[in-house]
């Protein structure tokens, strides 16, 4: 009987011949994923892909389930990091250099315009898609049940996205940037400060000074290129990881439950098994959740490779295409250099803050501080106060009509505020009609 003595030692020639495939195999521990084993391995043995599950539910792959909004947002973040790094090679965060460098750079450096445009439009789109994504999640009731906290993480990411965009707005150091940030910072100044202190501590902390200047620029720079991206990256990781741990993307419960539901045995609870099932897969002492039964694959599940990854690639390409096309036809604005003595009238904040500015124009404290805080806190608390158990993973579930109505009204009002702020506000924040002669900002 032949005894298996391990692998036969290769000759040197064989070593040379096998070197390429060995080398590849040392990187990828699986073959081309054309069978189920490799399809599994390609996901769980790859650092970059293992945030995905090996298999995912068929229903969530349908394009009209999620509209790919979350993925688009993530793609935009990826594009932003990439282009941002390129921009960092040229930029100097000094008030006397920043603008000049930009002007210099744009006409003399190959593809400068592309990098800048892509960065700018991605940033704006990201803000937009964050909101769209949030709305999608809300309308689908996807924050319910296990996914409560992931919604909160999402709200945090929303705030960070806004801050990222806001801090980046200042860096070109042109009039647009300067006055938008001045307005934004003055909104921060409406937050009650320390009583008895000469200056408002919040504005002071944001700007590093009482006015927008060199201190603010370096502060915004560091926040924009390091602190906030790291924070956002980490939270995005958490956000993704939670999706998996909370049972994948939200979907309506399956018609029949194929898998036993098992509760982990704890000292204080009783162990419970689904009756009639002998063996299941799962780390039963630790993990709570559905366990596939041995010998019975989960129904309606397909492999991530290629189904999910292909969809993701497509979303990524589509996003890139959109951004590139936008960049090709619309140039990122760069106005004249920041001039503190020549205030723009009206000085407008970036568009996503114009709703705020519009509210500030009615009442500084309520519009600028109280209501926004209430909005953020209120949004974060939605999953904890929504008592309706129905509608998880279903677009516009009938039983949620009130929630949907309230949310839609709220978003519409905010949208109207923003539209009013962008198009209908002229000098001294007075009302103008966009189709009548509206005058240059001087």
């Amino acid at each position: 009987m032949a005894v298996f003595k391990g692998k036969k030692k290769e000759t040197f020639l064989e070593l040379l011949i096998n070197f390429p495939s060995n080398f590849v195999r040392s990187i990828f521990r699986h073959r081309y994923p054309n069978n189920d084993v490799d399809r599994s391995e390609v996901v769980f043995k790859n650092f970059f892909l293992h945030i995905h599950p090996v298999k995912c539910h068929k229903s969530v792959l349908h394009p009209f389930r999620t509209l790919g909004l979350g993925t688009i947002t993530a793609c935009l973040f990826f594009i932003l990091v990439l282009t941002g790094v390129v921009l960092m090679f040229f930029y100097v965060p000094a008030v006397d250099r920043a603008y000049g460098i930009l002007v210099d750079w744009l006409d003399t450096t190959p593809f400068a315009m592309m990098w800048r445009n892509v960065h700018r439009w991605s940033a704006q789109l990201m803000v937009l898609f964050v909101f769209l994504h949030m709305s999608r999640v809300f309308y689908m009731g996807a924050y319910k049940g296990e996914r409560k906290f992931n919604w909160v993480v999402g709200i945090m990411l929303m705030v960070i996205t806004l801050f990222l965009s806001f801090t980046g707005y200042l860096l070109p150091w042109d009039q647009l940037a300067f006055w938008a940030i001045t307005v934004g910072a003055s909104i921060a100044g409406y937050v009650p400060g320390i009583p008895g202190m000469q200056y408002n501590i919040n504005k002071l902390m944001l700007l590093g000074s009482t006015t927008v200047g060199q201190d603010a620029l370096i502060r915004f720079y560091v926040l924009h290129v390091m602190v906030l991206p790291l924070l956002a990256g980490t939270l995005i990781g958490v956000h993704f990881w939670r999706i998996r741990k909370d049972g994948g993307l939200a979907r309506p419960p399956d018609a029949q439950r194929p898998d036993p539901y098992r509760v982990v045995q704890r000292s204080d609870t009783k162990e419970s098994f689904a009756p009639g099932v002998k063996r299941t897969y799962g780390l039963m002492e630790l993990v709570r959740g559905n366990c596939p039964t041995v010998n019975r694959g989960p129904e309606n599940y397909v492999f991530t490779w290629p189904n999910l990854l292909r969809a993701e690639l497509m979303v990524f390409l589509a996003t890139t295409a959109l951004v590139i096309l936008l960049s090709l036809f619309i140039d990122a604005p760069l106005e004249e250099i920041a001039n503190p003595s020549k205030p723009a009238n009206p000085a407008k904040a970036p568009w996503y803050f114009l709703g705020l500015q519009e509210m500030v124009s009615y009442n500084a404290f309520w519009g600028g501080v109280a209501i926004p805080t209430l909005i953020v806190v209120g949004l974060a608390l939605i999953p904890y106060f929504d008592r309706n158990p129905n509608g998880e993973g279903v677009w516009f579930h009938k039983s949620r009509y009130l929630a949907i109505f309230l949310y839609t009204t709220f978003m519409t009002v905010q949208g109207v505020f923003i539209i009013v702020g962008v198009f209908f506000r002229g000098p001294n924040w007075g009302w103008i009609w966009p189709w009548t002669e509206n005058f240059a900002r001087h």
Partner: protein
Amino acid sequence: MKNSQNAYQVALICFAFVVLFGIAAFAIRELFSEYKAYQNRYKQLAKFHSSFTGAEMISFPVGVKQIFIANQNTGVETVERCISCHLCLDLPHFSKVRIVQDANGKQVLDEKGQPVLEPNPDYVWINLEKQIAQLQDPATIDQLKKLGKNTQVKKRLKQASELEKLKTIKIKNKEIQVEKALQMHPLIGTETRPFQYHPLEQYGCVSCHSGEGRSLVAKRAHGPVFDGEYETSDSGLKPQFLEIDSSNDPRFAKMYNHKPAHDLIFQTTPILAASLVEAKCVQCHQPLVATFATPDEKRDIKMLISNYQKGRELFVSQACYSCHRIAGFSRNNVGPELTQSGLNYPWYIKESIVWPQADLPSSTMPNFKLDHEELEALMTFLMAQTGNTKAVSEVDYQIALSAWEKGKQMPWEEPVRMQDIVSAQTVFATEGCASCHRLQGFESKITLDAKQKQWFTKLFPENIQAIELAKIADDYAQEIDENIRVNEDKPNILEKIDAQFPALIESFYSNFKYALRAQDQHYRDDPIQLNAYRERLRRILKVYVAEYGLGRLIAPPLNWSGVFRDDEWLMGHFRNPALFTTKSLMPVMPFDDTKFYMLIGMLHKLGEKNKRELKEIWQDRGFDPAACYQRLCSSCHGADRKGNGSVAEWIFPIPKNLRDSIFLQTLSKERAIHSITHGIAGTPMPPWGKAINDNQPILSASEITQLVDWLYQDLDGNADQVKKWHYGPLDVIEEMKREKNFLQPIVSEGSSEELLHIFFKQQGDNFYIKDKFYTEENIQESKKFFINNCAACHGKEGAGTGVRASTMVEAKPRVFTDISWMQSYDDMHLLRAIKFGVPGTAMVPWGDQTTAAQRMQLVLFIRSLTFPMIKQKELQDLLFKVFDQKVRIVEETRCITYKKLENLEQELKIAKDKLEAVIQTKEPLQVGSNYVHIHNLQEKIQSFKTMDLLFKDLTQLLKEEKAIYSALGSQILAVQLPDAFIENFKTYIEHQSIRFLMNEEKLELKLPSEPSFFNMEMLDKIISEYTHKIDIEKSKISSSAQKSTVQTLTVEQASYIQLKSNILIELKRADALRQKQQDTFFILYYTNH
């Protein structure tokens, strides 16, 4: 499954392609950049150049060319890349012209000191043209064709078309002429080579031309300058400020007309085109005073910034300086400050001038309809304003500025001699008055007789349009040349102004400016005809000015103001226009009082003259109401009587629509005659039946009646039929009786006749509610009613600023704070207006909603609105009467002595000349007597000079005394004091002051007959009353309320004590000043004798 997989694959491939396409598009943009096109073209041209000069081609590497300009302080250098496209800025063979040199290689200069230029035979573009012409020469080609050398013909033509292609570059589907970009920089002034005085590597391009030097794309580097080349983002209607004549308008008409659209917001520093470059010269060089410059250079500089100088003059002559502040130049600060206007964009400045309401809808600046030429100069001046120039150190600038702020006088602020009508007219024309007002009485060398005048007015009506003007000037050329001829030799006032300020007069008439250039294209090749045409127009303009007056029609014309306005009115109006004409836009001109008096004198003189002329015409042709209306009324009420005259837009209230039959019918002829005769106080409607000098008003009573009859052509206008005018005080009483609701505080029964005297006091035909009814209750009661019912139009303060006021187009709500108007109508007038309303306006009858007592209360309230102002005005009137007239007398005497001084100086000059001659004769006696004569003269001159100074001192002292009383008066009016106290104060002022009289051109003094003293008893009484009150309050039980009452009372008392001490101190000062006045006068007196 398969299907979806396929769909996925197709989608993936598509998206990948889109991404690749996008990146490729960016790559293509990088590869074919604009500057490379220019550089390649330059290479081809250089090759072409060397092909016919034979010179060896210098190798030229394609790439970005840059100039680095070191920063003044530390820091990064500035980069400019203009020369990446503009490659030939210093190459002589790219210059159209070259300098003519004499045998020694020196420049040949013309009579102006400018180098003489000649066409450059070496000019590449000309040679290119020549070469093309040569290749395409039909004769040669025919010859070659005959010889059968068709290939050679083809080759030649191909060569020619290739050379032809060199002339243009296609960038983004736009053909661009390269010749403009690839050219040598023109020589400035006396330069012999480009950049001689401003080396390119040291100054670069941007320091003079502005724009974005770092950019490599024309659009961004140049910014939005030329019309049609860039996308603009205008929307909506824009008022057209001038008639457009695309073939003849200057190039500047199309520049800086639009704000940039989105893609140009990207780069908003435009290059300064046309003469605007001069603004940059001035930002570094102090205008005209380059200390290092030789006279030649100074002349050069003056010539180089001529447009800036013109703009500076325009800033004064168009009255900009009377509203806008420029530190170190003009003081008034009604409109936005322009000290740093150079930091704005040119199109913003242009827009703000031609359409002031564009950026600030509430702006009251009129559109002056400046022509392109004036706009260009004015913009140059405004673009140059950046505060300090680089030529002056910051310290020197601040010193100069503070000297100016402390009152260093600008030329127009200096005192003048008062009785000089020519200089008064010059001031009117050149220092801003004419920019808004039109004034008749400016004569020129051209005079027309009565018949010709008739012909002229028929051919050229006052409101003639520019196009018509141009057409008539051409069509009736012969007739015009026959009639409008120079008949006098001596230059008249218009010629004098023209000589001193060229092109100023025509700047007030945009239709003439338009007409002047209307034939430019037509007579392009015939300069003689063109000149004749322009000269003819200028002659027409002179007659037009003589006939209709000099100046614009923005404010009411002043032709006859001197006839019906007295000195007090005019002076008061100069000092505070809005007090005399409600909501007047007129700024307070930064003039010395003497200049105001000078202008007043001119108004009187010209007014009388114009009146005489008018009367003569009416005598000749008979009085024609229609013509009279056109002459006197149409500028406000409009030629078609609809209240839309050219001035109507800028005056308050809106001129009445005289076609409104309801209004006219209710007004009744009687009232209309009254309004025309006496004018309407507080509004621009003048009293046509008033004359201050003689008994000859502009319109006599019968003429006014005729005019009114004409206005009421088809209407009855009988007052008897209008109920309103029958409503008298007795009716008011009857109504109150009927309603059993009497005006408080007195309710008494009695016959209507008796009650009439209880409620009303009668002054002539006027009835006023008696003073005792002005109780707090009545006023508070009616205030509530007023705010609820009337304030929507009349405004809460009665200033006519209610929310509905802005929408009214026929007539605006009456302004109740207008003292002049309020004082010119009695209480019955107000009562009638409230009860019956004012038909033709938004004022509805309130008779049904109110009781008679309520209406009377309302009148009380409305009257009470003006009380504080009336007191203030009365005080000011008194001060004017007491002091200003004295100042005027002193100034007039000063003028007389000054005249004598001038005569003496003239005599001295003659005597000195004579002495020279006498010395030649060597006769000692005569020489001696001449010396004595000269000595005497010099002594006399000295004494006159001293007198002049003393006069100045006296004026100053009088002004100081006035200031003291004025300040005291406002203090007294600010606190609640009984009327008697104020009366006391007034009589004190009147009695105390010294009177100066002018007797036979000498100043005489009249001291107050008896020394009066100021009665402080009343104030003392008030103070002691307070002490009493405080004592009572203090004796109460201590509480926080009591404490605060004590405190308020103490503070109030302190204010009275303060007032008292102020009065004592200030009156002492006034006494001292008066003593000084006396002393000065006596010194004067003895110097004189």
